[in-house]
């Protein structure tokens, strides 16, 4: 049963496959012939097009040393081509992506606090300063607004900086530069200057980090015209999105999550780049569309396990692209299931979920059988106490309840 569903998912998913910029691969059906020819010397994994069926993760955060496979990520039907894979943690995947891009293009540089000698506060840039030098992996003083502006100036004059905010919350200090310069300069200069920066960093609610270190900035940045926002959730998409963001000519804000850095997964040895504007089908289903991103994906998958046992068949989509929304994938799903549940870590007011609700209602109103339900974090500054913090964020039990209500 599961295999069939997966298979359907794979087929349905291969429609989008031509957007995947995999080297020498286009849509799965086109390349089928080539696929076997390419791999004829290698081991064909059962000839099946299905994705690797890996157990659902119960913990959103894999503790260090846990070997549970991190994701049930929807790799495209042709992931089986990636025979050679290696296991990485998410922060290592980010580093790999960054390292590959830095090798490929000498104008890619990194700047941020403690990215150089310290290796990054979450070790994403570990080893890069030794490899590329102190100027290419620049340790900045604690001046977010100014070094973000510096990155923007460098981008305008030909470099491709990757600016790290040690915690996304610190980028509030850089809001001036991000909104006024990053987002606007391409437009106000009449297209004369482009700003190919990547602004990245960990955000989200962690383990009792306190209110200020637990902020979700995607809701504040989403209105800025001229930027793109993506959120990674698995090592596979982290590396792919990092590479895509660096190669993109637009300014991209890449949201990582503090609790996801130690997720482990086997990712392809081959180089791959993902699309910044596309959503990821995590689990195809029939009854309800659950839209989520970042850490909440794992809460959703945990809830999905429970739901499956109760006989529901949720379709889980990791929207990945927070701005712009991939209305095609989302729309197709809505047209199929007619029920939408949004699960996010953003606050209720003015969050990503709010925008998504509006977008879906505007575009797919006729296809909805029930009002869209949006589960977000409470509109409170994240408390320190563990219990309170737990109740701030959406938990799997709430997701299960919401689906049950929605599907009545």
């Amino acid at each position, binding site marked *: 049963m599961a295999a069939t569903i997966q298979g359907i998912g794979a087929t349905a998913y291969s429609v989008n496959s031509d957007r995947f910029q995999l080297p020498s691969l286009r849509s799965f059906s086109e390349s089928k012939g080539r696929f076997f020819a390419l791999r004829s010397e290698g081991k064909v994994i059962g000839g099946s097009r299905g994705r690797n069926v890996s157990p659902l993760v119960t913990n959103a955060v894999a503790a260090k040393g846990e070997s549970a496979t991190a994701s049930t990520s929807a790799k495209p039907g042709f992931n089986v081509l990636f025979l050679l894979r290696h296991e990485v943690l998410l922060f290592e995947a980010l580093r790999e992506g960054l390292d590959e891009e830095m090798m490929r293009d000498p104008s890619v540089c990194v700047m941020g606090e403690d990215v150089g000698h310290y290796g990054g506060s979450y070790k994403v840039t570990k080893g890069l300063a030794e490899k590329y*030098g102190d100027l290419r992996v620049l340790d900045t003083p604690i001046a977010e*607004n100014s070094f973000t*502006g*510096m990155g923007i*100036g460098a*981008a305008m004059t*030909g470099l491709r900086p990757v600016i790290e905010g040690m915690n996304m919350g610190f980028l509030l200090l850089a809001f001036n530069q991000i909104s006024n310069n990053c987002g606007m300069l391409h437009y106000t200069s009449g297209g004369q200057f482009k*700003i190919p920066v990547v602004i990245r960093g960990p955000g989200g609610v962690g383990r009792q980090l306190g209110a200020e270190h637990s902020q979700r900035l995607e809701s504040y940045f989403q209105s800025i015209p001229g930027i793109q926002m993506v959120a990674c959730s698995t090592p596979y998409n982290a590396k792919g999105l990092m590479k895509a963001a660096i190669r993109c000519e637009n300014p991209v804000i890449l949201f990582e999550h503090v609790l996801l850095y130690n997720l482990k997964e086997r990712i392809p040895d081959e180089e791959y780049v993902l699309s910044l*504007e596309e959503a990821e089908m995590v689990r195809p289903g029939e009854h309800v569309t659950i839209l989520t991103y970042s850490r909440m994906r794992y809460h959703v998958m945990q809830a999905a396990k429970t739901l499956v046992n109760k006989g529901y068949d949720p379709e889980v989509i990791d929207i990945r692209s927070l701005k712009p929304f991939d209305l095609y994938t989302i729309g197709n799903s809505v047209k199929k299931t007619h029920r939408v549940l949004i699960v996010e870590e953003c606050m209720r007011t003015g969050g990503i979920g709010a925008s998504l609700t509006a977008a879906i209602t505007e*575009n797919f109103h006729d296809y909805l059988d029930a009002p869209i339900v949006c589960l977000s974090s409470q509109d409170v500054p994240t408390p320190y106490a563990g219990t309170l913090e737990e109740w701030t964020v959406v938990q799997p039990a709430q997701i299960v309840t919401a689906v049950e209500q929605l599907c009545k």
Partner: protein
Amino acid sequence: MIKPGQPPQCFSRPSVLSSLSLSNPPPSQKKDKKKMSSPILSGAKILQTLPINSNAGGSASDPPKPLSDPLLLLKSKSSLFRSSPKLRRFSSYSPCRSFSSSSSSSSAVFAVSSDVVKEEKKKPKLSTSVSDLLITKEEALELYEDMVLGRAFEDMCAQMYYRGKMFGFVHLYNGQEAVSTGFIKLLKKEDCVVSTYRDHVHALSKGVPARAVISELFGKTTGCCRGQGGSMHMFSSDHNLLGGFAFIGEGIPVATGAAFTSKYRREVLKKADYNSVTLAFFGDGTCNNGQFFECLNMAALWKLPIVFVVENNLWAIGMSHLRATSDPEIWKKGPAFGMPGVHVDGMDVLKVREVAREAISRARRGDGPTLVECETYRFRGHSLADPDELRDPAEKARYAARDPITALKKYILDKKLGTEAELKAIEKRIDEVVEDAVEFADESPLPPRSQLLENVFADPKGFGIGPDGKYRCEDPKFTEGTAHV
């Protein structure tokens, strides 16, 4: 008043740092213009140079060096310098030595009084001979033409604004032309300029055609930014004018980034002959802003090829610089971060040019940034919407008497670098240029609707994927500007 024969400001090796007590006199004394001892002492400034910590191209052999040498603070007595009441400009001259680049400041140079006195005695003779060599005829006429262009253009802007051809916030540069001309005319094409909202004349000096600037002001599609930027956002990638920023202080980090690219190109990308310099222009109000200080720190830390030019026109809209700033001597803030701070008379284009020459070549050599404070004045209000009621008419008259264009004209005629007729011809030519520009702008088309959504993204795929599966930018209505995004 300007003391005649005051030598051009120059840069020196580290010299004595006035002790803290002397460099920060009590506020009452600061405002007393006759009080001399501490400002003169400030001729002694320490240049805190730092070991170069950039490992170019990945060599990991150098262990991380400490990023700052201990400051060598030396107390010196205040009576060393002879003070002249007329020298209220707190000029920072120190014995002019040729500035040699060195990376360690292990030996501080003491400015000894007797040297300074000798220097002062030498000054009158030195200056007359020096200023004769300061400029050739071609250069003089070029400077004159540039300043006249700036003035005529801004006057025309005012006219056009009151006739309803342009709207919004327009900030005019009348009176400050010496700073723009003095600095920007020394730049090469690949050098970058970053400005503020008072950027028309910076754009013109950098080479952006008057037609493009005025069309931009009129909001026409032939403007330098296709009409999308306006008065406060002048950009030109051809001329390396990186803007045009509406919020003060915003441009300084961008300038720092451009300087960073220059250093990066030279050291990481190994383009040895690449040594572009960036100039960041901003006002006195900006010098109380955090971005200013943060960038001074970073620029000095990494020895970026940048010059921070403060156009101190004493007023930030209606806020007097003295009312807003604890220590109004902005040039003094440079040494606090490890770079020379220089004060120059911003109404005298030749003095500005001399200082600029030194600062720019310092940056180009790789010796790091400089903070130059140009004392200048804007003859008009902050913007065309400013009634300009707060400023004392006597102050305005005083500065009007020091009009940089009149001063240069007098200089040219006195030194026989040009004739009255030649200068008149220049003025006539400029008038024609400006008129032609206005005509051009008048006849240019307004932006069509299809331009609305262009240029939001460098890669318009950023608008995302629509419900039909296609990228939004592929929608034919997108180019019409009517697509729903």
